[in-house]
């Protein structure tokens, strides 16, 4: 019978063998079945063994690998070690016969039949064992992962030190470094995720990557911008672009740094930052100040409007609607009425009527 390479477990009630590779394969014998055991010493070409002599199988035996066999014993072969210790403990258990007076631990079965109850509870012990094994294995994996991670971080730290020393050299030379070298340096920082020690920006903008990205964005965003009245918040852009990509997404910083280059690359879009800190992308052809004029008309028609109302009327996001109204106010076209009912804008009659 070939049950090779496994782990032998001894409980107060059973002898369990589990295949080391295939954890699903698990067989067990109740200790009550054991008549006696004997040792067989190892020899040349032979491993140490324990021979377990068994009672004939009882009629209500659980289904196992074999319904019956012509042998009345099984042999446990210890290829590596453990035979002596195991023999000792197995003898102990057989002598003590603890299974006779111990109700097995966690019985969830309410069934009063002691035989059935015992079998069910023992099953739970088996499951618990499996979980314990799995936990130990997971722990081993994790600790290996952490070890590897620590080593990796050591190396990363060296990179950080090196970049600092290069940055110092650059400072000392006071701008004697070529533009090419600067770009190279910045792209190295980008790869490692190191903040630019010279300018303090995270990994520095102005790398080739960001230039490429800026050009790409100009292409991707043209139509969506036109569809949205020429202006979109950076948050909208972030979602739009990343949803379209699916993979290899842009980080928020990638997006911002690329957008900062739009104007200098003479692309048809530009980045604009409002007083509130809200960042938007506009078409070059878009003129927010002109839009303010039409906003004023809309507000005048309605007498007064909140950002919410204006947004619904015009079909804009509330965020951008508010920015437009605020800009109009800044330019003096609108007045605000700030109450607990909300922020409402009115045409600035002080200006128009004198």
């Amino acid at each position, binding site marked *: 019978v070939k049950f090779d390479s496994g782990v032998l477990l001894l409980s107060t009630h059973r002898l369990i063998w589990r295949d080391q590779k295939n954890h699903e394969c698990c067989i067990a014998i109740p200790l009550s079945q054991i008549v006696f055991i004997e040792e067989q010493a190892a020899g040349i070409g032979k491993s140490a063994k324990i021979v377990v002599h068994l009672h004939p199988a009882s009629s209500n035996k659980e289904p196992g690998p074999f319904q019956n066999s012509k042998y009345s014993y099984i042999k446990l072969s210890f290829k590596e070690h453990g035979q002596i210790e195991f023999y000792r403990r197995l003898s102990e258990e057989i002598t003590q016969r603890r299974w006779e007076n111990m109700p097995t631990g966690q019985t969830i079965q309410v069934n009063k039949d002691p035989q059935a109850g015992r079998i069910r509870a023992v099953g739970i012990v088996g499951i618990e064992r499996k979980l314990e094994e799995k936990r130990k294995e997971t722990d081993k*994996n*994790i600790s*290996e*992962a952490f070890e*590897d*991670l*620590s080593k*990796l*971080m050591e*190396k*990363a730290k*060296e*990179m*950080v030190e*090196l*970049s600092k*020393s*290069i940055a110092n*050299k*650059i400072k000392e*030379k006071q701008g*004697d*470094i070529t533009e090419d*070298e600067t770009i*190279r*340096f910045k792209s*190295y920082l*980008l*790869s*490692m*995720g*190191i*903040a630019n020690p010279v300018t303090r920006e*995270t*990994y520095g903008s102005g790398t080739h*990557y960001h230039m490429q990205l800026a050009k790409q964005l100009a292409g991707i965003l043209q139509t969506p911008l036109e569809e*949205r009245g020429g202006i*979109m918040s950076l*948050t*909208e852009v*972030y*979602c739009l672009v*990343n949803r379209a990509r699916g*993979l*290899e*997404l842009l*980080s*928020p*910083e*990638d997006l*911002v740094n690329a957008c900062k280059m739009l104007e200098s690359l003479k692309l048809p879009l530009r980045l604009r930052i409002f007083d*509130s800190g*809200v*960042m938007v992308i506009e078409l070059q052809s878009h003129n927010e100040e002109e839009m303010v004029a039409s906003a004023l008309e809309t507000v005048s028609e309605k007498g007064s409007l909140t950002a919410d109302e204006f947004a619904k009327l015009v079909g804009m996001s*509330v*965020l951008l609607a508010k920015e437009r109204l605020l800009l109009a106010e800044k330019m003096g076209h609108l007045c605000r009425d700030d*109450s*607990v009912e*909300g*922020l409402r804008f009115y045409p600035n009659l002080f200006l128009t009527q004198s």
Partner: protein
Amino acid sequence: LRQAKYKERGTVLAEDQLAQMSKQLDMFKTNLEEFASKHKQEIRKNPEFRVQFQDMCATIGVDPLASGKGFWSEMLGVGDFYYELGVQIIEVCLALKHRNGGLITLEELHQQVLKGRGKFAQDVSQDDLLRAIKKLKVLGNGFGIIPVGGTYLIQSVPAELNMDHTVVLQLAEKKGYVTVSEIRSSLKWETERAKQVLEHLLKEGMAWLDTQAAGEPQYWLPALFTELYSQEITPEEAKEGIP
């Protein structure tokens, strides 16, 4: 002539170091690839491992989420995980903004994001959300993290919230609402100061006024009481989120 020689020397030195960095970078990339082939799964599946990883990076001065083009992102896939999470966070916040004025508890955000991700998506922890939000700040949409009573309120609108507002939010966190008297007794403020703060929260839509309450008016924070009901995001609300 001497000056020129010194200058040249200087350039050569930098060139050398850059060359050295380039070589070390290649080596590091290989190490990282090896690490990824063994443990990439760990990062994806294990939130605690992610925390450790992030903390270690921070300690040595490295930001693995700075760029999608960085090694960390490309090889470990950390980038995509967090950037996508960012998109999901934005969408949830936008959808619920009209209900809570742009303030939401981390718990509710967590729940809604998990719902949106579906049954088969990777598990996402609150720590993951916080890291993604920190990255989103740079987009200028007013993302902020406000500590209250052991958890956090996430702000997603560019409203000015100073120390006074924050402290009142923290006070309100216990019961979901706060009154002027409570502010006066707990914080020892003048009525005027308390009222100013509460009015600001009302205007921003972050607080609702209950004038029918017994005793004095109560200022409720929808961000705090919707957590009890955990309502679904309606289709209309979801549309608000998608550009």
